[in-house]
């Protein structure tokens, strides 16, 4: 195949994978669907990525970038037979600037490795998705990833100051800059979260966050999920924005506790995991606020992690939540809708109703502080009719979120999974505007086609006439 021959000339044989077994392995991310991979390449430099893009373009082969493949929305799964550009070997960390608190980072660097590397300097990378032990910075940039600590710090876009981008034409350009407010349009803002549809990010300038001098992690048991959610609302209304505010419902707590044995109260209706960071004095006063509001909402148990190992254990329960589900059922479907924080309780009630109506096993663990819901359906896909029920329920959960002004994704991205639900949030005109952004970067539709925007999104000509 001439495409593979040309790529092999560029990269040598061992970095162009096209054995059927390799293609099978690379045809999937952590979501549900499988795609069609022509070849998976392992470039080591931006120049190699650019050259590969030019080759693929010559053959009209769509290009799909991939990090660690932990994405849940199918963003790294080629819909049409495509070239997978695997960026894990672009994994250098360099030019750490302690004045600016920034570093240049290859997209293949693993999220947690970056923070570990910077630990001696007292700095870390704030976004911390649950998959942070495996997911890459490039993937975080692609999906504008979040994590529990985005409550105070914002999602990935707030932590990426610049990115080197290989364009759809195979040129290398820089979006953003080391200096603030680069003149012109802020292309960086749309490149982050574009899921590989605007080009391939080959290096990023990350903003680093100073490690807090003190941290307190609290685990609070509540009789009901409503009382936990009301506590979250009142904490924020009090003027305190904690580092994290996470809620797990009873089925989730039970699954997690059987898996990690972190001492979570399995008899509580819901558990709130709260973290406060800052100076010791600020942390002490923040803890006091959370404890007192929790008690006013009839908290059944308040436990504070007293040392780093206990804190790690409490967080392990939260971050291992999705793994823990495997003990319950072989498959799971994880949602990622977001609603205004004040709608949390109402939407949760409706979501439980949907679960009951479709007779599915549902667990909830979510970023309560910013209204980001993650209903998780545990199921066995081999059971006849089960997948249909799960998907019908999924659609309804999305709809009840959007009815109250919510949206499709808080941190996982749209990818393929939610592409055809975009109409629920956006009008044809809104989608057309997004399609214009895409066209400015990639008018030939080479970069991760058929993702994010539904087919036919670019639907008006310059005079507003439907194409």
């Amino acid at each position, binding site marked *: 195949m001439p495409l593979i021959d040309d790529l092999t000339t560029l990269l040598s044989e061992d970095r162009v994978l096209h054995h059927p077994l390799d293609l099978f392995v690379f045809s999937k991310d952590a979501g549900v669907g499988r795609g069609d991979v022509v070849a998976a390449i392992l470039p080591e430099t931006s120049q190699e990525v650019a050259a590969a893009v030019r080759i693929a373009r010559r053959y009209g082969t769509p290009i799909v970038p991939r990090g660690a493949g932990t994405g849940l929305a199918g963003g790294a799964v080629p819909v049409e037979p495509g070239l997978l550009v695997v960026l894990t070997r672009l994994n250098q960390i360099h030019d750490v600037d302690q004045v600016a608190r920034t570093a240049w980072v290859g997209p293949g660097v693993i999220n947690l490795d970056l923070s570990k590397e910077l630990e001696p300097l007292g700095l870390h990378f704030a976004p911390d998705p649950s998959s942070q032990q495996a997911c890459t910075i490039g993937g975080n940039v692609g999906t504008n990833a979040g994590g529990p600590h985005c409550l105070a710090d914002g999602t990935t876009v707030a932590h990426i100051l610049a990115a080197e981008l290989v364009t759809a034409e195979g040129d290398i350009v820089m979006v953003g800059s080391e200096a603030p407010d680069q003149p012109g349009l802020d292309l960086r803002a749309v490149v982050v*979260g574009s899921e590989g549809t605007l080009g391939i990010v080959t290096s990023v300038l990350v903003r680093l966050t100073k490690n807090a001098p003190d941290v307190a992690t609290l685990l609070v048991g509540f009789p009901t999920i409503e009382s936990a959610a009301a506590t979250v609302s009142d904490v924020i209304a009090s003027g305190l924005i904690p580092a994290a505010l996470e809620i797990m419902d009873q089925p989730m707590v039970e699954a997690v506790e059987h898996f990690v044995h972190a001492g979570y109260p399995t008899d509580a209706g819901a558990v709130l995991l709260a973290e406060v960071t800052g100076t010791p004095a600020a942390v002490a006063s923040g803890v006091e606020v959370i404890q007192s509001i929790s008690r006013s909402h009839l908290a059944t148990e308040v436990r504070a992690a007293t040392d780093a190992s206990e804190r790690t254990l409490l967080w392990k329960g939260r971050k291992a939540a999705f793994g823990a589900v495997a003990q319950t059922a072989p498959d799971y479907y994880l949602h990622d809708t977001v609603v205004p924080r004040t709608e949390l309780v109402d939407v949760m009630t409706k979501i439980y109703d949907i679960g009951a109506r479709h007779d599915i096993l549902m667990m909830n663990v979510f970023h309560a502080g910013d209204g980001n819901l993650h209903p998780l359906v545990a199921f066995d896909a081999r059971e006849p009719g089960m997948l249909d029920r799960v998907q019908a329920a999924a659609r309804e959960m999305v709809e009840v979120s959007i009815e109250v002004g919510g949206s499709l994704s808080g941190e996982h991205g749209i990818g393929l999974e939610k592409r055809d639900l975009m109409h629920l949030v956006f009008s044809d005109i809104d989608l057309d505007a997004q399609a214009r952004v895409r066209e400015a970067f990639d008018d030939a539709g080479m970069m991760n086609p058929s993702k994010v925007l539904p087919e036919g999104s670019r639907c008006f000509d310059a005079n507003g006439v439907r194409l």
Partner: protein
Amino acid sequence: MSRVAPTSVAEVTSLIEEARGAHRPLWFSGSGTTPVPDGHTVIGTENLTGVVDYRPDDLTIVVQPGTTLAELAETLGVHRHTAVLPETAPTRTVGGVIAAGASGYCRHRYGPTRDRVIGVTLVAGYGEVVHAGGQLVKNVTGYDIPRLVTGSHGALGFIAEIYLKLWPSPEKGTTIAVSDIAQARDTIYQPTAALETENGGFVYISGSLASVNAQADSLEGSAWDGLLWPDPLEENIVAAINVPPRFVPDAVNRVRDVGASRFVAQHGVGVVDVGWSDIDAGHISELRSWAEANGGSLALHRRGSLGDGVPRWGLAPGTAAIQRRLKHLFDPDGVCNPGVLAGNV
């Protein structure tokens, strides 16, 4: 130069349609911070003011573009909230600040203004009303058009509504004069700002009472209650030199060398605002070349006696080709603040 002040989004849409038909350029303007070039019809926002939807418990607000910073602050003050917009003239409009992508001194702690723009309604240059984002503090549904529009200077269309993410107002603020600003900035955990002016170095701390007191105790120097920001630069010529933060001390030396009347340097951020009563074009070019050689830029916000001979922006960005395509796709007839951006986009 004529000025029109539409009272509705529908009126804005028809004004844009008319301008396209007549091939007549428009200039969207808030309080008029940016001077209007000749030959444009000004579309003012003074009749599009006020709060559309404030949800205190969600920490979000939607406002019309002509709302002044003073009006916004008054509304938010009731619930002790802040949108952390620039500490500039209170008569400036929210629409103007967002269009300019202007950030204030609290950026060191809260990030740029752009990070708080969670949604927009844009009357695009092709005449359609586009909604993007929402009243949600976390949202990754599609391309981030709200952040793209922030700092677009009206080049993509008219910003008709702005959705902002809010913060609780800090309980306390304090301002401390320091002798070594770099060291002071490093010593404390989370300074709100670290500014150097012609009067010396100042560290600003804000937050909860406990947090401010604890951090302030670790610094030596005269301290004042409250965040005492420098007065706005009102010289005839005002420039923003933006450089990677490590070049700020160098920038300060250079600015002193060319006799700036006033300057405010944001340590750790990389912005150095400078005011001159008068300066010759050669010095501006030298400063600009130096900033650009170090990965930065110099923007002239007020040109005074320099006139149009010295451009507002310097080098076109390396992504000018993509920016031009984007401009063309959003404003096919080039009627929305044409040439307002760097690289004549």
